[in-house]
């Protein structure tokens, strides 16, 4: 019963038609929210006492580093769905998300290290967060290169989902161990988590930028999954009607 329901609901055809309707609303509303919160955050919030103006990078950095992990979680859920119920759409989603995840992680990494220059005085610090983000980035690249090296799509999908699941089990382990490792060093002078409390005038634009960025990335995932569906289902007759 469940299997039938999932297969019906998650058929690429239904997905494509449903998603097309929602796409415009998500895109324009999240674009609006994102730009609004960025302008608010970058120009209107008061200066931070400790970090000065460089703290404004928070509005660009935090959404990305937040999403870099959620996207991997999404991939892991899709992988389990694919391996258990053989839902094709889930397989398309995995490989649709992977490059976007890599891009978001890259944003998180580069913005973090640029932020590091004014605050730490160096662009790279072997801090736990940065290191685990770097490892996550490498994992994303590994996923992409695994998938592109097989010409048989079904095979590539299955192998990819195995890797995603094993990697997913490992992410908390890597995070924990890197945390543990970094306690050896002097802890970084300023970390995000140690901030006492954030002023609401700084918090609201932050929440807004997270929501907006989230929506934009969802739009990206939608388009790239569309690309995957059209690429992989190109022989289906319904697709020709759709186009």
């Amino acid at each position: 019963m469940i299997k039938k329901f999932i297969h019906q609901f998650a058929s690429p055809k239904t997905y494509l038609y449903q998603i097309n309707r929602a796409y415009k609303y998500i895109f324009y509303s999240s674009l609006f929210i994102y730009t609004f919160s960025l302008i608010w955050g970058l120009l209107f919030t008061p200066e931070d006492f400790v970090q000065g103006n460089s703290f404004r990078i928070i509005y660009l950095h935090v959404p990305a580093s937040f999403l870099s992990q959620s996207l991997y979680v999404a991939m892991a859920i899709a992988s389990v769905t694919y391996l258990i119920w053989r839902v094709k759409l889930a397989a398309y989603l995995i490989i649709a998300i992977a490059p976007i995840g890599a891009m978001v992680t890259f944003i998180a990494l580069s913005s973090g290290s640029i932020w590091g220059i004014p605050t730490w005085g160096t662009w790279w610090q072997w801090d736990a967060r940065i290191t685990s983000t770097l490892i996550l980035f490498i994992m994303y690249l590994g996923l992409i290169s695994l998938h592109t090296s097989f010409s048989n799509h079904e095979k590539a999908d299955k192998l990819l989902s195995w890797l995603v699941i094993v990697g997913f089990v490992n992410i908390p382990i890597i995070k924990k161990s890197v945390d543990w490792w970094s306690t050896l060093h002097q802890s970084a002078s300023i970390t995000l988590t140690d901030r006492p409390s954030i002023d609401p005038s700084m918090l609201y634009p932050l929440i807004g930028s997270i929501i907006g960025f989230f929506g934009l990335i969802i739009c990206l995932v939608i388009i790239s999954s569309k690309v995957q569906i059209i690429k992989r289902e190109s022989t289906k007759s319904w697709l020709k009607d759709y186009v």
Partner: protein
Amino acid sequence: MRSWLGPILLFILIMVSYPLTIEFLEQDLEKGFYSLLWISILLSMMFSTEDIFLEDYNDGSLEQIIISSTSFPFMVAKKILIYWLMIGIPISILSFLFSLGITQNLSISLFLFPMALISSYIFLNLFVFGTALSLNKGSVLGALITMPLALPVLIVLGKSIIAIQFGINYLEFLLLLLGCLSIIITVVPFIVSYVIKTHLE
């Protein structure tokens, strides 16, 4: 199985070239030695697994094993064990010997030996997973995929050396690795056999 000597030689070469890259008469050889030791164990394990299934895949033996009634995960586990016996154990003994030459502190070397045994087995399992994924697509891909998974083990290894240098109880590190090993030993053969079956499809 013919290639068991290669990884051991690689290990020896890295170990020998380490002092050569440091200034002559350097007194502080010990400082970077352990991290290099763990990394070279990692590298030689990576090197040793690069074609663990490739030959059987190319000549069709893998298909025969799957068709026959023998348990495939069990065969994978056996294969990993043989690799460990032929490569992992010699490398662990060698790392014991090399560390004797570097440090005067015997307890470090004595402690290092079981760590090397366990960690080489863990690395082997992880890289076998990687090579199984990239089976006929070259070993670089498999290594790239599985290296991040091996990092926590490296961290534990590094910490354990520091613990012993400062006289902290290091037994818990050993137990931690043993725990990891027991999970990995039971899980990896099953995942690897699924992955290889996917390849043969």
